[in-house]
């Protein structure tokens, strides 16, 4: 298409968006004082912005179509090449590891705290990745299991003085039980219905926590949740934050190890096969319901453990931390990084959680960016930044 044609098209798009966003972006009514604020400048921004975005959009669509026609294999992205090249990847991992170990000693408490939050999301992302990335089940109520973990620690500690190290496995176990109980009746549903049902379960759990005051203390939440003590000794505030930081780092490493093992096992293969073709999978003797339930339960267990850490970190929890949009954020980290890819999910989670923290100017745009990321990723790069190149089994003759 000619350049003038392109410009004409973009002008039309930009005019359309100026019209479309006119009432919401330009007019703001103050109903108390009965004055109207006209923000014409916004219209100019929209006009200019959409003009360029529409050009970029069409260019990207065309590029994607061209790529689609090419052979799929042998077309690795830069990130994939790095991951597959052991000479680069192993030193890279070692360097990152070193950085992670010295992090709390190099940066302030504040930074360490942010890093703990980000690592909690990494753990959640990796857990959800078992459910979505490996088994292909869209779980929109994932945060409910996070809540189960957090509340198990908070409540069991409050009533019975349960310590962190017991609460961690117990919280995971309770979330697993919840996952199995909720998952059992719904996992035979088709993908999109499953997504909605899990969303429903997630909201039910949150609403119950909000309304059942006798049990969960309602919206006011539970304060004074203790941080884990080291060998029975209560640490100073900074000490306990550093300690918690190493705990979550340890757990993330454990998670990576477990997922790696699972991926290359009989169970992991069954998950991938199930994602590829359910009918053929059953014809191979794989129990569909049980295999799905395993992924669902394991994912839930990880969310539960992350929940215990979350409660210990914030020392205060209430139902507002467990809304459906929290599930969507976790989904967003998995989608951005690349479903099924461990490195992808970790980078996705760190990117999405750390960037808004450091770019303070953008923090109010956090959620709108998450929304845009989900749409843009699905349209342009459904495989994520790091498109998962599954490590296939290579046969060696013995």
């Amino acid at each position, binding site marked *: 298409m000619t350049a003038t044609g392109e410009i004409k098209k973009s002008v039309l798009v930009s005019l359309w968006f100026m019209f479309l966003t006119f009432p919401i972006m330009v007019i703001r009514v103050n109903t108390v004082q009965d004055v109207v604020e006209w923000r014409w400048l916004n219209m100019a921004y929209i006009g200019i912005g959409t003009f360029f975005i529409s050009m970029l959009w069409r260019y990207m669509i065309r590029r994607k179509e061209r790529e689609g026609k090419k052979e799929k294999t042998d077309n690795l992205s830069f990130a994939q090449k790095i991951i597959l090249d052991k000479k680069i990847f192993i030193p890279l991992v070692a360097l990152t590891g070193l950085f992670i170990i010295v992090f709390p000693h190099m940066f302030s408490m504040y930074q360490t705290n942010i890093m703990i939050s980000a690592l909690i999301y990494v753990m959640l992302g990796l857990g959800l990745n078992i459910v979505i990335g490996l088994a292909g089940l869209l779980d929109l109520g994932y945060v409910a299991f996070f809540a189960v973990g957090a509340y198990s620690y908070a409540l069991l500690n409050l009533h019975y003085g349960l310590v962190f190290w017991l609460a961690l496995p117990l919280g995971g176990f309770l979330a697993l039980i919840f996952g199995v109980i909720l998952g059992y009746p719904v996992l035979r549903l088709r993908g999109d219905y499953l997504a909605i049902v899990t969303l429903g379960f997630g909201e039910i759990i949150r609403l119950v926590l909000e309304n059942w005051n006798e049990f969960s203390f309602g919206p006011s939440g539970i304060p004074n949740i203790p941080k884990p003590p080291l060998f029975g000794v209560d640490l100073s505030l900074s000490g306990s934050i550093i300690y918690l930081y190493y705990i979550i780092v340890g757990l993330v490493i454990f998670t990576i190890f477990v997922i790696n093992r699972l991926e290359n096992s009989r169970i992991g293969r069954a998950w991938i096969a199930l994602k590829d073709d359910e009918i053929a999978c059953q*014809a191979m003797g794989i129990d569909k319901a049980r295999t799905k339930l395993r992924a669902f339960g394991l994912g839930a267990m990880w969310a539960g453990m992350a929940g215990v850490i979350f409660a210990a970190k914030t020392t205060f929890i209430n139902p507002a931390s467990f809304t459906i949009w929290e599930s969507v954020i976790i989904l967003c980290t998995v989608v951005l990084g690349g479903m099924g890819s461990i490195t992808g999910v970790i980078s996705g989670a760190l990117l999405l959680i750390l960037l808004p923290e450091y770019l303070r100017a953008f923090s109010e745009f956090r959620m709108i960016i998450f929304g845009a990321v989900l749409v843009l990723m699905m349209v342009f790069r459904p495989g994520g930044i790091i498109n998962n190149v599954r490590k296939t089994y290579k046969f060696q003759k013995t």
Partner: protein
Amino acid sequence: MKPILEVKNMTMAFGGLKAIDSLDISIHQGEIAALIGPNGAGKTTFFNCITGIYKPTSGDIFICPHEKQERLNGLKPNIVTKKGLARTFQNIRLFSSMTVLENVMIGCHSITKAGVLGAIFKNAATKAEENFIVEKAYSILEKIGIEMYVDELATNLPYGAQRRLEIARAMATDPFLLLLDEPAAGMNPMETKSLDDLIIKLRDEENVSILLIEHDMKLVMSLSDNIHVVDYGKKIAEGTPEQIKSNPDVIKAYLGDESEDA
């Protein structure tokens, strides 16, 4: 001796339409049987019914791999496979993100048992099982004759090899009866000929009986011990290839328009 598969008076109705209408079919140990009939006669539906994908409206399905007879009705597809009935699909359904070897490894799922904990701890038993799976899968590939593609992605295989991989995958479940849904569809005459040899080899060396749906009459006539002809969900004839060739009903219903089907 009892037939290894005995279908009695089976009917499968979708709404008012009877895709299968009181059908009786028996398969005996060591037999290569064929199920033929015009398009839409209900052949694939028959496979779907006995493998548990559909629940037949009425009738009985029995298997008798050893001495004891068992009823298959209402069992889930994965249980049917575990009992020893394996199938291939007319419209190839391979696991597209997996390699050839991995596809066959999935077939070993029902005869192995490592769980989540085994996967995480990777103990000696799990390791031994993984080795067993890999070796079994590879030896099946060798038998089927597609071991040269071992590490290829299943979707990158030529068409004929994909059909063979479907058979390999089914064989990995250790079946006593193999159900092949149009195994020669889309193959050239040479590939069809070698498929003919393969099926006979499987029967003779692997001790598996075979029931196949096929439109390629030459293949059916040369392979089969016994042929069942269905039309509009009803069985219209049964017999050896010679008997079928000369059966007037069959000629009327089916072979009459052979030119279209072949």
